[in-house]
Protein backbone atom coordinates (compact mmCIF):
# COMPACT_ATOMS: atom_id res chain seq x y z
CA UNK A 1 0.00 0.00 0.00
CA UNK A 2 2.78 2.37 0.93
CA UNK A 3 4.56 1.73 -2.36
CA UNK A 4 1.33 2.60 -4.12
CA UNK A 5 1.11 5.84 -2.13
CA UNK A 6 4.69 6.80 -2.93
CA UNK A 7 4.10 6.09 -6.63
CA UNK A 8 1.01 8.31 -6.50
CA UNK A 9 3.01 11.01 -4.73
CA UNK A 10 5.62 10.93 -7.51
CA UNK A 11 2.84 11.18 -10.08
CA UNK A 12 1.37 14.14 -8.20
CA UNK A 13 4.74 15.92 -8.29
CA UNK A 14 5.02 15.31 -12.03
CA UNK A 15 1.51 16.67 -12.49
CA UNK A 16 2.19 19.79 -10.39
CA UNK A 17 5.46 20.42 -12.15
CA UNK A 18 3.69 20.10 -15.51
CA UNK A 19 0.99 22.53 -14.42
CA UNK A 20 3.55 25.01 -13.09
CA UNK A 21 5.41 24.86 -16.42
CA UNK A 22 2.10 25.37 -18.23
CA UNK A 23 1.39 28.50 -16.18
CA UNK A 24 4.99 29.65 -16.70
CA UNK A 25 4.54 29.34 -20.48
CA UNK A 26 1.38 31.48 -20.28
CA UNK A 27 3.32 34.26 -18.58
CA UNK A 28 6.34 33.83 -20.84
CA UNK A 29 4.24 33.91 -24.03
CA UNK A 30 2.23 36.89 -22.82
CA UNK A 31 5.45 38.80 -22.25
CA UNK A 32 6.74 37.86 -25.67
CA UNK A 33 3.39 38.88 -27.19
CA UNK A 34 3.64 42.21 -25.35
CA UNK A 35 7.21 42.91 -26.45
CA UNK A 36 6.57 41.93 -30.11
CA UNK A 37 3.00 43.30 -30.15
CA UNK A 38 1.90 39.87 -31.27
CA UNK A 39 -1.90 39.74 -30.86
CA UNK A 40 -2.09 36.21 -32.28
CA UNK A 41 0.24 34.84 -29.61
CA UNK A 42 -1.72 36.76 -26.96
CA UNK A 43 -4.89 35.07 -28.21
CA UNK A 44 -3.35 31.62 -27.67
CA UNK A 45 -2.55 32.60 -24.06
CA UNK A 46 -6.17 33.64 -23.49
CA UNK A 47 -7.23 30.29 -24.92
CA UNK A 48 -5.27 28.41 -22.26
CA UNK A 49 -7.21 29.83 -19.31
CA UNK A 50 -9.77 27.04 -19.07
CA UNK A 51 -7.17 24.28 -19.27
CA UNK A 52 -5.22 25.99 -16.47
CA UNK A 53 -8.33 25.99 -14.29
CA UNK A 54 -9.01 22.32 -15.05
CA UNK A 55 -5.47 21.31 -14.15
CA UNK A 56 -5.72 23.32 -10.92
CA UNK A 57 -8.92 21.61 -9.79
CA UNK A 58 -7.75 18.14 -10.81
CA UNK A 59 -4.43 18.42 -8.99
CA UNK A 60 -5.99 19.91 -5.88
CA UNK A 61 -8.44 17.01 -5.81
CA UNK A 62 -5.53 14.57 -6.05
CA UNK A 63 -3.87 16.25 -3.05
CA UNK A 64 -7.04 16.06 -0.98
CA UNK A 65 -7.51 12.40 -1.82
CA UNK A 66 -3.90 11.52 -0.97
CA UNK A 67 -4.31 13.21 2.40
CA UNK A 68 -7.68 11.61 3.15
CA UNK A 69 -6.65 8.11 2.16
CA UNK A 70 -3.06 7.96 3.42
CA UNK A 71 -2.73 10.32 6.39
CA UNK A 72 0.77 11.33 5.24
CA UNK A 73 3.41 12.51 7.72
CA UNK A 74 6.88 14.08 7.65
CA UNK A 75 8.28 14.71 4.16
CA UNK A 76 5.32 13.02 2.47
CA UNK A 77 2.98 15.45 4.23
CA UNK A 78 5.25 18.42 3.51
CA UNK A 79 5.42 17.44 -0.17
CA UNK A 80 1.64 17.50 -0.48
CA UNK A 81 1.36 20.80 1.41
CA UNK A 82 4.05 22.30 -0.80
CA UNK A 83 2.33 20.92 -3.90
CA UNK A 84 -0.95 22.60 -2.92
CA UNK A 85 0.87 25.93 -2.53
CA UNK A 86 2.71 25.41 -5.83
CA UNK A 87 -0.65 24.80 -7.55
CA UNK A 88 -2.14 28.00 -6.08
CA UNK A 89 0.91 30.12 -6.95
CA UNK A 90 1.09 28.66 -10.47
CA UNK A 91 -2.56 29.37 -11.12
CA UNK A 92 -2.04 33.01 -10.14
CA UNK A 93 1.04 33.28 -12.38
CA UNK A 94 -0.90 31.77 -15.32
CA UNK A 95 -3.74 34.21 -14.73
CA UNK A 96 -1.35 37.18 -14.72
CA UNK A 97 -0.21 35.84 -18.10
CA UNK A 98 -3.83 35.90 -19.24
CA UNK A 99 -4.34 39.46 -17.92
CA UNK A 100 -1.18 40.60 -19.71
CA UNK A 101 -2.44 38.99 -22.94
CA UNK A 102 -5.65 41.01 -22.62
CA UNK A 103 -3.59 44.22 -22.39
CA UNK A 104 -1.65 43.19 -25.50
CA UNK A 105 -4.96 43.05 -27.36
CA UNK A 106 -5.66 46.63 -26.26
CA UNK A 107 -2.31 48.16 -27.23
CA UNK A 108 -0.92 45.95 -29.99
CA UNK A 109 -1.85 48.48 -32.70
CA UNK A 110 0.17 51.32 -31.20
CA UNK A 111 3.97 51.65 -31.24
CA UNK A 112 5.81 51.14 -27.96
CA UNK A 113 6.96 54.16 -26.04
CA UNK A 114 10.40 54.67 -24.48
CA UNK A 115 11.60 51.21 -25.49
CA UNK A 116 9.10 49.70 -23.03
CA UNK A 117 11.15 51.16 -20.17
CA UNK A 118 12.61 48.19 -18.22
CA UNK A 119 9.76 45.74 -18.71
CA UNK A 120 11.69 43.27 -20.93
CA UNK A 121 14.51 43.13 -18.37
CA UNK A 122 12.08 42.79 -15.46
CA UNK A 123 10.22 40.07 -17.30
CA UNK A 124 13.45 38.12 -17.87
CA UNK A 125 14.35 38.33 -14.17
CA UNK A 126 10.89 37.27 -12.98
CA UNK A 127 10.66 34.35 -15.39
CA UNK A 128 14.10 33.17 -14.19
CA UNK A 129 12.91 33.27 -10.56
CA UNK A 130 9.80 31.24 -11.37
CA UNK A 131 11.87 28.78 -13.40
CA UNK A 132 14.32 28.34 -10.52
CA UNK A 133 11.51 27.79 -7.99
CA UNK A 134 9.88 25.14 -10.20
CA UNK A 135 13.24 23.45 -10.81
CA UNK A 136 13.96 23.40 -7.07
CA UNK A 137 10.56 21.72 -6.50
CA UNK A 138 11.21 19.16 -9.23
CA UNK A 139 14.78 18.36 -8.18
CA UNK A 140 14.08 18.64 -4.43
CA UNK A 141 17.14 20.81 -4.19
CA UNK A 142 17.07 24.25 -2.60
CA UNK A 143 20.47 25.45 -3.83
CA UNK A 144 18.88 27.57 -6.58
CA UNK A 145 16.77 29.40 -4.01
CA UNK A 146 19.69 31.11 -2.31
CA UNK A 147 19.62 34.81 -3.09
CA UNK A 148 15.88 34.91 -3.75
CA UNK A 149 15.49 37.74 -1.29
CA UNK A 150 18.00 39.96 -3.15
CA UNK A 151 16.41 39.03 -6.48
CA UNK A 152 12.99 40.02 -5.15
CA UNK A 153 14.42 43.36 -3.97
CA UNK A 154 15.75 43.98 -7.49
CA UNK A 155 12.27 43.30 -8.90
CA UNK A 156 10.69 45.76 -6.47
CA UNK A 157 13.25 48.38 -7.47
CA UNK A 158 12.51 47.82 -11.16
CA UNK A 159 8.78 48.15 -10.62
CA UNK A 160 9.36 51.41 -8.79
CA UNK A 161 11.59 52.81 -11.50
CA UNK A 162 9.11 51.83 -14.25
CA UNK A 163 6.38 53.55 -12.27
CA UNK A 164 8.36 56.80 -11.97
CA UNK A 165 9.45 56.72 -15.59
CA UNK A 166 5.89 56.14 -16.75
CA UNK A 167 4.67 59.10 -14.69
CA UNK A 168 7.33 61.30 -16.30
CA UNK A 169 6.19 60.34 -19.81
CA UNK A 170 2.57 60.90 -18.92
CA UNK A 171 3.32 64.41 -17.64
CA UNK A 172 5.37 65.26 -20.70
CA UNK A 173 2.77 64.03 -23.15
CA UNK A 174 -0.78 63.17 -22.11
CA UNK A 175 -1.21 61.07 -25.27
CA UNK A 176 1.01 58.43 -23.66
CA UNK A 177 -1.21 58.08 -20.59
CA UNK A 178 -3.14 55.02 -21.72
CA UNK A 179 -0.08 53.08 -22.80
CA UNK A 180 2.13 54.16 -19.90
CA UNK A 181 -0.65 53.12 -17.48
CA UNK A 182 -0.69 49.68 -19.06
CA UNK A 183 3.10 49.52 -18.61
CA UNK A 184 2.64 50.26 -14.91
CA UNK A 185 0.01 47.54 -14.68
CA UNK A 186 2.23 44.99 -16.43
CA UNK A 187 5.13 45.87 -14.11
CA UNK A 188 2.77 45.36 -11.19
CA UNK A 189 1.74 41.94 -12.56
CA UNK A 190 5.39 40.95 -12.90
CA UNK A 191 6.15 42.10 -9.38
CA UNK A 192 3.25 39.98 -8.07
CA UNK A 193 4.54 36.99 -10.06
CA UNK A 194 7.95 37.42 -8.39
CA UNK A 195 6.17 37.36 -5.03
CA UNK A 196 4.50 34.10 -6.03
CA UNK A 197 7.93 32.72 -7.00
CA UNK A 198 9.13 33.66 -3.50
CA UNK A 199 6.15 31.86 -1.96
CA UNK A 200 6.98 28.82 -4.07
CA UNK A 201 10.58 29.02 -2.87
CA UNK A 202 9.51 29.26 0.78
CA UNK A 203 7.34 26.19 0.37
CA UNK A 204 10.01 24.18 -1.39
CA UNK A 205 12.34 25.05 1.48
CA UNK A 206 9.69 23.81 3.92
CA UNK A 207 9.22 20.64 1.90
CA UNK A 208 12.93 19.93 1.97
CA UNK A 209 13.93 20.99 5.47
CA UNK A 210 10.75 21.19 7.55
CA UNK A 211 11.79 24.72 8.52
CA UNK A 212 9.57 27.73 7.89
CA UNK A 213 11.50 30.57 6.29
CA UNK A 214 10.40 33.95 5.02
CA UNK A 215 11.81 35.57 1.94
CA UNK A 216 11.54 39.27 2.67
Amino acid sequence: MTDKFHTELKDLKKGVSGMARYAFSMLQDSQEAFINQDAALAATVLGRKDALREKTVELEETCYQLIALNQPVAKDMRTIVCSLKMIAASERIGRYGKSTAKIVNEIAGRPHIANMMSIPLMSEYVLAMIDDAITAYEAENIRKLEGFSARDDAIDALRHSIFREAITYMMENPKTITQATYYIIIARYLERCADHACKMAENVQYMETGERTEIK
Partner: protein
Amino acid sequence: MSDSTVIATKNLNLWYNEKHALQDITMEIEKKKTTALIGPSGCGKSTLLRCFNRMNDLISHVKITGELLLDKEDMLCNGMDVVALRKRVGMVFQRPNPFPKSIYENVAYGPRVHGISDRKVLDEIVERSLRHAALWEEVRDRLNDSALGLSGGQQQRLCIARTLAVEPEVILMDEPCSALDPIATAKIENLIEMLKEYYTVIIVTHNMQQAARVSDYTGFMYLGKLIEFDKTTTIFEHPKEDLTENYITGRFG
Protein backbone atom coordinates in the same frame (compact mmCIF):
# COMPACT_ATOMS: atom_id res chain seq x y z
CA MET B 1 16.27 15.89 35.85
CA SER B 2 13.73 18.70 36.01
CA ASP B 3 10.80 18.89 38.45
CA SER B 4 8.32 18.22 35.67
CA THR B 5 9.94 14.83 35.00
CA VAL B 6 8.22 11.81 36.52
CA ILE B 7 10.28 8.98 35.06
CA ALA B 8 13.88 9.26 33.88
CA THR B 9 16.23 6.69 32.41
CA LYS B 10 19.95 7.08 31.91
CA ASN B 11 21.99 4.61 29.86
CA LEU B 12 19.42 1.93 30.55
CA ASN B 13 20.44 -1.45 29.14
CA LEU B 14 18.53 -4.71 29.26
CA TRP B 15 19.49 -8.20 28.19
CA TYR B 16 17.28 -11.27 27.79
CA ASN B 17 20.03 -13.89 28.18
CA GLU B 18 22.44 -12.87 25.39
CA LYS B 19 19.98 -10.66 23.56
CA HIS B 20 20.75 -6.99 24.13
CA ALA B 21 17.12 -5.79 23.98
CA LEU B 22 17.53 -2.20 25.23
CA GLN B 23 20.67 -0.24 24.49
CA ASP B 24 21.65 2.93 26.33
CA ILE B 25 18.16 4.37 26.62
CA THR B 26 18.24 7.88 28.04
CA MET B 27 14.98 9.76 28.24
CA GLU B 28 12.80 11.85 30.54
CA ILE B 29 9.03 11.42 30.73
CA GLU B 30 7.15 14.61 31.52
CA LYS B 31 4.44 14.67 34.19
CA LYS B 32 0.80 14.83 33.10
CA LYS B 33 1.68 14.46 29.45
CA THR B 34 1.14 11.54 27.12
CA THR B 35 4.23 9.90 25.71
CA ALA B 36 3.99 7.39 22.85
CA LEU B 37 6.59 4.78 21.99
CA ILE B 38 6.59 3.64 18.37
CA GLY B 39 8.79 1.36 16.30
CA PRO B 40 8.70 -1.90 14.36
CA SER B 41 7.97 -5.21 16.10
CA GLY B 42 10.82 -6.35 18.29
CA CYS B 43 12.37 -2.88 18.63
CA GLY B 44 12.10 -2.99 22.43
CA LYS B 45 9.23 -0.58 23.04
CA SER B 46 7.16 -3.01 25.14
CA THR B 47 10.30 -4.10 26.98
CA LEU B 48 11.03 -0.47 27.83
CA LEU B 49 7.42 0.08 28.94
CA ARG B 50 7.63 -2.96 31.20
CA CYS B 51 10.78 -1.58 32.82
CA PHE B 52 8.74 1.36 34.10
CA ASN B 53 6.91 -0.80 36.64
CA ARG B 54 9.45 -3.63 36.76
CA MET B 55 7.25 -6.13 35.00
CA ASN B 56 10.41 -7.60 33.49
CA ASP B 57 11.21 -8.98 36.96
CA LEU B 58 8.69 -11.70 36.13
CA ILE B 59 10.84 -12.94 33.25
CA SER B 60 13.86 -15.08 34.08
CA HIS B 61 17.40 -14.35 32.82
CA VAL B 62 16.81 -10.61 32.51
CA LYS B 63 19.73 -8.34 33.34
CA ILE B 64 19.33 -4.58 33.64
CA THR B 65 22.02 -1.90 34.01
CA GLY B 66 21.86 1.88 34.09
CA GLU B 67 19.57 4.27 35.90
CA LEU B 68 15.79 4.22 36.14
CA LEU B 69 14.21 6.87 38.36
CA LEU B 70 10.62 7.46 39.45
CA ASP B 71 10.27 10.90 41.03
CA LYS B 72 14.07 10.92 41.50
CA GLU B 73 13.88 7.61 43.38
CA ASP B 74 15.94 4.67 42.15
CA MET B 75 13.46 2.13 40.81
CA LEU B 76 16.03 -0.62 40.36
CA CYS B 77 17.40 -0.74 43.91
CA ASN B 78 16.91 -3.88 45.98
CA GLY B 79 14.90 -2.05 48.62
CA MET B 80 12.21 -0.95 46.16
CA ASP B 81 8.79 -2.32 47.16
CA VAL B 82 7.57 -3.62 43.81
CA VAL B 83 3.93 -3.88 44.93
CA ALA B 84 3.97 -0.24 46.02
CA LEU B 85 5.74 0.68 42.78
CA ARG B 86 3.03 -0.98 40.69
CA LYS B 87 0.40 0.97 42.64
CA ARG B 88 2.15 4.16 41.55
CA VAL B 89 2.72 2.94 38.01
CA GLY B 90 -0.34 1.07 36.72
CA MET B 91 -0.61 -0.89 33.53
CA VAL B 92 -3.25 -1.61 30.87
CA PHE B 93 -2.60 -4.48 28.49
CA GLN B 94 -3.21 -5.26 24.84
CA ARG B 95 -6.24 -7.46 25.42
CA PRO B 96 -8.78 -6.45 28.04
CA ASN B 97 -8.33 -8.81 31.00
CA PRO B 98 -11.06 -8.16 33.57
CA PHE B 99 -11.30 -10.53 36.50
CA PRO B 100 -14.22 -13.00 36.28
CA LYS B 101 -16.06 -10.94 38.89
CA SER B 102 -18.66 -8.20 38.94
CA ILE B 103 -17.94 -4.77 37.44
CA TYR B 104 -17.89 -3.34 40.98
CA GLU B 105 -15.48 -5.94 42.32
CA ASN B 106 -13.09 -5.47 39.43
CA VAL B 107 -12.63 -1.82 40.36
CA ALA B 108 -12.75 -2.35 44.13
CA TYR B 109 -10.17 -5.16 43.99
CA GLY B 110 -7.05 -2.96 44.04
CA PRO B 111 -8.17 -0.65 46.87
CA ARG B 112 -9.17 -3.74 48.91
CA VAL B 113 -5.69 -5.25 48.41
CA HIS B 114 -4.27 -1.98 49.67
CA GLY B 115 -6.38 -2.24 52.83
CA ILE B 116 -9.54 -0.25 52.18
CA SER B 117 -12.62 -2.08 53.43
CA ASP B 118 -15.13 0.68 54.26
CA ARG B 119 -18.01 0.13 51.83
CA LYS B 120 -18.80 3.83 51.53
CA VAL B 121 -15.20 4.68 50.64
CA LEU B 122 -15.10 1.81 48.15
CA ASP B 123 -18.36 3.00 46.57
CA GLU B 124 -16.83 6.43 46.07
CA ILE B 125 -13.65 5.01 44.58
CA VAL B 126 -15.60 2.77 42.21
CA GLU B 127 -17.79 5.63 40.99
CA ARG B 128 -14.89 8.07 40.61
CA SER B 129 -12.73 5.52 38.78
CA LEU B 130 -15.53 4.51 36.42
CA ARG B 131 -16.30 8.17 35.75
CA HIS B 132 -12.63 8.91 35.00
CA ALA B 133 -12.61 5.90 32.67
CA ALA B 134 -15.73 7.29 30.89
CA LEU B 135 -17.65 4.11 31.71
CA TRP B 136 -19.90 5.17 34.61
CA GLU B 137 -22.93 6.21 32.55
CA GLU B 138 -22.90 2.89 30.70
CA VAL B 139 -22.66 0.60 33.74
CA ARG B 140 -24.09 2.48 36.75
CA ASP B 141 -27.26 0.37 36.74
CA ARG B 142 -25.51 -2.97 36.50
CA LEU B 143 -22.48 -2.74 38.76
CA ASN B 144 -23.11 -6.23 40.10
CA ASP B 145 -23.25 -7.87 36.66
CA SER B 146 -20.26 -9.89 35.51
CA ALA B 147 -17.53 -7.83 33.87
CA LEU B 148 -17.25 -10.53 31.24
CA GLY B 149 -20.65 -9.49 29.86
CA LEU B 150 -19.28 -6.10 28.73
CA SER B 151 -18.17 -5.40 25.15
CA GLY B 152 -14.44 -5.46 24.38
CA GLY B 153 -14.19 -1.67 24.44
CA GLN B 154 -16.10 -1.47 27.74
CA GLN B 155 -13.89 -4.20 29.22
CA GLN B 156 -10.80 -2.21 28.26
CA ARG B 157 -12.20 0.93 29.89
CA LEU B 158 -13.03 -1.19 32.95
CA CYS B 159 -9.38 -2.28 33.06
CA ILE B 160 -8.40 1.40 32.92
CA ALA B 161 -10.87 2.13 35.78
CA ARG B 162 -9.32 -0.75 37.74
CA THR B 163 -5.91 0.85 37.26
CA LEU B 164 -7.21 4.30 38.26
CA ALA B 165 -8.81 2.93 41.45
CA VAL B 166 -5.43 2.73 43.21
CA GLU B 167 -4.63 6.32 42.17
CA PRO B 168 -1.45 5.77 40.19
CA GLU B 169 0.82 8.59 39.06
CA VAL B 170 1.66 6.93 35.79
CA ILE B 171 -0.43 4.68 33.54
CA LEU B 172 1.37 2.39 31.11
CA MET B 173 -0.64 1.22 28.11
CA ASP B 174 0.65 -1.56 25.90
CA GLU B 175 -1.26 -1.48 22.59
CA PRO B 176 -4.53 -0.76 24.45
CA CYS B 177 -6.63 -0.51 21.28
CA SER B 178 -5.23 -3.30 19.14
CA ALA B 179 -8.09 -5.65 19.98
CA LEU B 180 -10.82 -3.00 19.61
CA ASP B 181 -13.00 -1.73 16.77
CA PRO B 182 -12.65 1.90 15.55
CA ILE B 183 -15.48 3.26 17.72
CA ALA B 184 -14.14 1.64 20.91
CA THR B 185 -10.67 2.86 19.89
CA ALA B 186 -11.94 6.42 19.53
CA LYS B 187 -13.43 6.22 23.04
CA ILE B 188 -10.13 5.05 24.52
CA GLU B 189 -8.28 7.81 22.66
CA ASN B 190 -10.69 10.44 24.00
CA LEU B 191 -10.21 8.94 27.43
CA ILE B 192 -6.42 9.22 27.17
CA GLU B 193 -6.86 12.91 26.38
CA MET B 194 -8.99 13.34 29.53
CA LEU B 195 -6.66 11.29 31.75
CA LYS B 196 -3.83 13.70 31.02
CA GLU B 197 -5.36 16.16 33.44
CA TYR B 198 -4.56 13.90 36.38
CA TYR B 199 -2.07 11.28 35.23
CA THR B 200 1.01 10.70 33.13
CA VAL B 201 0.29 8.25 30.32
CA ILE B 202 2.89 6.22 28.43
CA ILE B 203 1.49 4.30 25.49
CA VAL B 204 3.07 1.73 23.18
CA THR B 205 1.33 1.58 19.84
CA HIS B 206 1.83 0.13 16.39
CA ASN B 207 -0.64 2.61 15.03
CA MET B 208 1.33 5.70 14.13
CA GLN B 209 -1.75 7.82 13.51
CA GLN B 210 -2.84 6.93 17.02
CA ALA B 211 0.50 8.05 18.43
CA ALA B 212 0.16 11.28 16.46
CA ARG B 213 -3.38 11.84 17.70
CA VAL B 214 -3.02 11.13 21.40
CA SER B 215 0.52 11.95 22.46
CA ASP B 216 2.48 15.07 23.37
CA TYR B 217 5.86 13.36 23.01
CA THR B 218 6.88 10.46 20.81
CA GLY B 219 9.88 8.17 21.05
CA PHE B 220 10.91 6.16 18.00
CA MET B 221 12.76 2.96 18.79
CA TYR B 222 14.68 0.67 16.47
CA LEU B 223 16.69 -2.46 17.27
CA GLY B 224 16.73 -1.72 20.99
CA LYS B 225 17.80 1.91 20.64
CA LEU B 226 15.87 5.11 21.17
CA ILE B 227 16.58 6.73 17.82
CA GLU B 228 14.67 9.96 18.35
CA PHE B 229 12.58 11.41 21.18
CA ASP B 230 10.85 14.73 20.70
CA LYS B 231 7.56 16.55 20.67
CA THR B 232 5.02 14.57 18.64
CA THR B 233 4.46 17.48 16.26
CA THR B 234 8.19 17.57 15.49
CA ILE B 235 8.43 13.81 14.99
CA PHE B 236 5.54 13.74 12.54
CA GLU B 237 6.21 17.03 10.76
CA HIS B 238 9.97 17.12 10.42
CA PRO B 239 11.85 14.39 12.25
CA LYS B 240 15.58 14.94 12.57
CA GLU B 241 16.71 11.39 11.90
CA ASP B 242 16.40 9.74 8.49
CA LEU B 243 15.56 6.44 10.16
CA THR B 244 12.53 8.02 11.89
CA GLU B 245 11.47 9.67 8.63
CA ASN B 246 11.70 6.39 6.72
CA TYR B 247 9.76 4.50 9.36
CA ILE B 248 6.87 6.93 9.84
CA THR B 249 6.45 7.44 6.11
CA GLY B 250 6.19 3.67 5.68
CA ARG B 251 9.43 3.18 3.75
CA PHE B 252 10.35 0.28 6.03
CA GLY B 253 9.03 -1.65 9.02
